[in-house]
Every structure is written in structure tokens, then in C-alpha cells.
């Protein structure tokens, strides 16, 4: 049962300090678990979420480059931290600070991914939403192809270079 993509609205859902969203996916990004907070905030039923691609929560304002970076990093076995604007079932959006880590089996092979989302630091959201807007616009200008991704990535890299920090360092320091 494919879920229909919600139409985004201007409604924002703000996470509480102690909110702790947990979800798990398989290697393809299909949801295998979501905790109650995840269910409550996303507005989906557990049964709707299980087996659905995690990308159903993607907000159209998000630059694709961020997800490319996320997948590149976790597939190489490293964790990633990222600010993400998510889309709820009712079209509302909510900002999270996501930490995604690969899960390994006893032989050290990646068997799935584990994601924890927390309330983002409010001070960082101004910078991040400006950055994401510029990146997303650049991607759209290039017609959403490889070229646009590269140009968008260049913007992110430039910001890191300007601060003299790696992406991880930058994101954790905001």
C-alpha cells in the first residue's frame, strides 16, 4: 500500500526538549521500527510506517544533497548528524536534529540504520534554513541533475571552508 505524498502546509510542529524520536530502517531505507514519539509527531499509524520508505517524511524544501551526503556517509559505516526539515502526514513540517548510525552484525556488516531525532538548537535553524534554501534553489536551477547536486555541494563545502571546519564539526558546533 503506497502512501500518498502529503501536500505541505505552513503549519509547524515544534519538538519539546525531551522529545526523542527513534526509527530504524533496513538497508534500502524502508522503515522497520518507529517509536511512539515518531508516530505521534509524523501523524502516521505504526502500520502505515512499517515497510514504508523513510523518504515519505522528506520535505520538498530539503536539498537532495543533504540526503546524498547522509547516505554516502552511513553507507561507508560512519554516523552522520544533520538538521532535517520533515513533513508530517497532515502537511505540517517539523525541524529535527538527526543522528543516523549504521547497525552492524557480528561480522561487522551493515544490516540496517538507526536514527535518533532530537529538538534542534533554535539558534542553528536560521543559518540552516538559509543554507538549505540556497542549496535547494541551486539544485532546481540546474534542473535537479548531477550538476545541480555538485553546485549545491559546493555551497556547503564553501561554508565549511569558511569556518575552517569539517561538515561534522560544523554541524555539531552550530
Amino acid at each position, binding site marked *: 500500500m503506497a502512501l500518498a505524498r502529503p501536500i505541505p502546509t505552513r503549519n509547524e510542529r515544534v519538538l519539546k*526538549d*525531551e*522529545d*526523542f524520536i*527513534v526509527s*530504524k530502517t533496513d538497508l534500502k531505507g524502508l522503515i*522497520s*521500527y518507529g*517509536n*511512539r514519539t515518531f508516530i505521534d509527531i509524523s501523524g502516521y499509524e*505504526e*502500520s502505515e510506517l*512499517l515497510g514504508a520508505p523513510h523518504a515519505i517524511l522528506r520535505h520538498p524544501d530539503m536539498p537532495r544533497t543533504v540526503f546524498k551526503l547522509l547516505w554516502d556517509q552511513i553507507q561507508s559505516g560512519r*554516523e552522520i548528524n544533520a538538521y532535517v526539515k520533515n513533513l508530517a502526514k497532515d502537511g505540517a513540517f517539523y525541524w529535527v536534529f538527526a*543522528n543516523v*548510525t549504521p*547497525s552492524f552484525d557480528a561480522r561487522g556488516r551493515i*544490516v*540496517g540504520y*538507526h536514527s*535518533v531525532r*532530537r*529538538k534542534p538548537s533554535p539558534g542553528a535553524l536560521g543559518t540552516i534554513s538559509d543554507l538549505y534554501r540556497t542549496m535547494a534553489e541551486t539544485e532546481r536551477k540546474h534542473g535537479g541533475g548531477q550538476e545541480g547536486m555538485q553546485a549545491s555541494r559546493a555551497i556547503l563545502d564553501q561554508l565549511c571552508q569558511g569556518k575552517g*571546519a569539517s561538515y*561534522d*564539526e560544523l554541524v*555539531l*558546533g552550530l
Partner: protein
Amino acid sequence: MTNLSLGSRIHLLAGGAFVLYLAFAALGFRAAGPNGWMIVLLVLSAVVFMVLLYTLHRIQAALARITSQMQQAAEGHLDGRITGIKKGAATADLSWALNNLMDQVEAYFRETNAAFEHSARGDTYRKAMTSGLHGDFRASLERVNISVDAMAQTQRLQMKEQLVGRISELNSVNLVKNLKAIQDFLVNQNQEMKVVANLSRETAQEADASSAGIQAIVADLNRVVDLITSTHGQISRIHEKSAEIHQIVQVITEVADRTNLLALNAAIEAAHAGEAGKGFAVVAEEVRTLSENTKDAAASIAASIGSFGQATTRMLDDAGRMKEIADSSRSAITEFAGQFQRFSESARTSLAQVSKALDVGFASLVKVDHFVFKQNGYRIIQTGPESPEARAVQATHHQCRLGQWYYEGGQGKELFGQLSCYARLEEPHARVHGAVHEAMALLGDRWESDPALQERVFDAFRKTERASDEVMEALDCMVEERHRG
């Protein structure tokens, strides 16, 4: 029955109750006969029993999943969760509570791992994120972050110490090498200074000997000049006497002339006397001949005295010139003697300076030997108590080069033994060796992990340095005292 599981027991009890109910219903039928209401009640109660059994089955299944989940977790597999939880199910809250617990536990471990992994790589920016974790999980993560900070600090210190250690190792290796080069240089310089000192000593001795020779020459020359002067005087007196002789000859010539005139007069008178005067005439002739002879002899004496006078005049001239030459020679020789005296004095002065330089040079060599000894002591920290450096510092204060120089049979004892500063060297020198030996013994122990032991090693080296300063002062004092003049 006690061996059955809880689920099976519930099923058995429910089944038993249903059978008892059916028996009760059958008894009712027998007593009162079939009745419509009773059939309806029977059917309803059968349905209720079925629902009850089904519910019990669902609960049992959920409990089985929860149990297996918890067993997995107990075995360290934190990844599993209970999914497909029905809303309002009797076990829904229990399942979510278990999931929440697992979420907390798993996130706790992932955060801990992330923080430690980053810290191990030297990244200090990734701390364990505590937000969203509750109670003890959060408190523990906060402590993890404190540990990670402490680890990072320790790591920085270790890295700093590693570099400091490597550089000081490099420095100390090169320091010993450089000191040994200076040592070689000083040994050579010492040899060469000895040659120079010997040359200076010989020069000074020869200058003294030559100076005495020159004094003898000057004295001889003075005597020659005196003799020439006295010869000159005597020749003058001879010259004067010849003038007196000339006057006497003049008188003799006059007497001879008068005698001749008298003889002539006598001959004339004899001629007057005739025959009687013939004999007298012979006498007068003889007298005249005598006076002629006398006059001739006087003339020849006058001639001799004249040439004698010329000779003495020349001798006087020659003697005068000889005196002049001897006088100028004497002043030249006197001046030369003065110069030679000064040369001899400067030869003595340079001998004194060269021998001081020799002592300073040797004292420097002794100092460098001492530095090498001390540096080898420091090197043991890096090279360990079995190293060549450790063997090098095992020497006692009698065996090391300074000791050999200082004690019986050494040059130090010979040259400086009488001085008060000489005695000042022994005690601090012994202390330097004692302190280095103490440090060496401590370095044989497990000083790397024992701060108290490290403190004692440091103290031993500090004692070494203090004693070493005193050794240096005593050496300077010895050289100064010996050459104070």
C-alpha cells in the same frame, strides 16, 4: 501442573472452567428440561469462552514476543523492537515501555561509542548527546563526556610529552656528541698548548742565558775601552819625554859646538906656542874630533827622536780613534743589552700567560668531561639502566677523568695540590657521582607510573646540578688561585 508454562496453565484453567460449566448446564437440563433461555445462555457463554481463549492466546503470543525480545537484549542484541503493536491491546503499553527502554539503552550505547571513537581519533567536537535520554542514562552520558574530556586532555598531554621527549632525546644525543667534539678539540688544544708552553719556557731560559752573556760582553768591552784609554795616556807621556830628550840633545849639540870652538882656539894657541905646544895641538885636535863626533851622535839622536815622535803622534791618533769606536760600540751594546733584557722579561711574561692558558684549557676539558658524565646520566631516562650510558656513569669520583686528574699521580694534584681551592673540589664532586648513581638506581624501578618515584628522580638530578655548579666554581677558583701572581 507446576511444570506447565503460565500460558498453558491459563488455557487449562479456562478449558476446565468451560467443561465444569457444560457439566453444570447438563445437570440443569436434566433437572428442569430443555428451556429456550437456557440454550441462548449456553451459546452466549460458549462464545464468551471462545473470545476469552482467543484473547488469552493473543496475550500469550505477545508475552512470548516480549520475552524473546528481552532475552535478545540480555544477550547483548539491542537492535530488536516489538512492532505491529495493536492500539488498545492489553500488552500495548508493556510493549511500548519495552521499546522505550530499548531505545534509551541503544541510544546510550551508540552515543557512548561515538564519543569514545571520536575522542580516540583526537576529535574533540563530538560529545555524547544527552538530550532525549532520561535519568541515569543521561547522568551516565554526562559522566562519559567528562571522561572523554579528561581522555582528550591526557591524550594532548601525552602527545605534547611525546614531542617534548623526542626533541629532548634528539637534543641530548646531539649534546653529548657536541660535548665529545669539544672534548676532542680541548685534548688537541691541550697538547698544542703544552708544546707552546715548552717553547716559551725554553725561550725564556735562553733569553736569560743570552742576557748574562751579553752582560759579560759589555763588561769585557768596558775593560777594553779602559785599557785603550790608559794606553793613550802612556803614549802621551812617552811623547812628552821625547820632547825633553830633544831639548837635551840640543844642549849636547851646543856643548859640542862650544867644545869645537874651544878646540880650535886651543890649536891656534898651541901653534903660537910652537914646538912646546905641539902636544897640546894634538890634544886640541882630539878634543875637536870628539866634539865633532859628539855633534854627529847628537844629530843622529835628534833624528831618531824626531821619527820616534812622529810614531807616537800616529799612535796617539790611532788610540784616540780606537777609544771613539770602543765608546760607540759600548753604547750600542748597552742599548742591545737593554733590549735583550726587555725581551727576556716578555718571554717570562708570555710563559706565565701560556701556562695559565694551559690550565684554563685543561680545566675546560675537565669541565666538558664532567658535562658528558652528567648528560649520560640524563640519557639513562631514555636509554634505560642497561645502556652504554648507564655503564658510563657507573664510574666513581676516583675513576672518572676528573677523578684521575685530581687524585694521587694526576696532573691536578701535581699542579694545584698546594692550593686551598684544590680541597674545595673533592666533596661536591663526590656528591655529583652519588646523586647520579641515586638517580640511576631509581630509574631501574617502575618510575614511569609512579609519581613519587619520578619526584625522587627529579630531586636526584637537581642535587646533581647543584653539586655540579660547585665543582665548576672550585675548578675556576683553582686556576685563578694558581695564577694570582
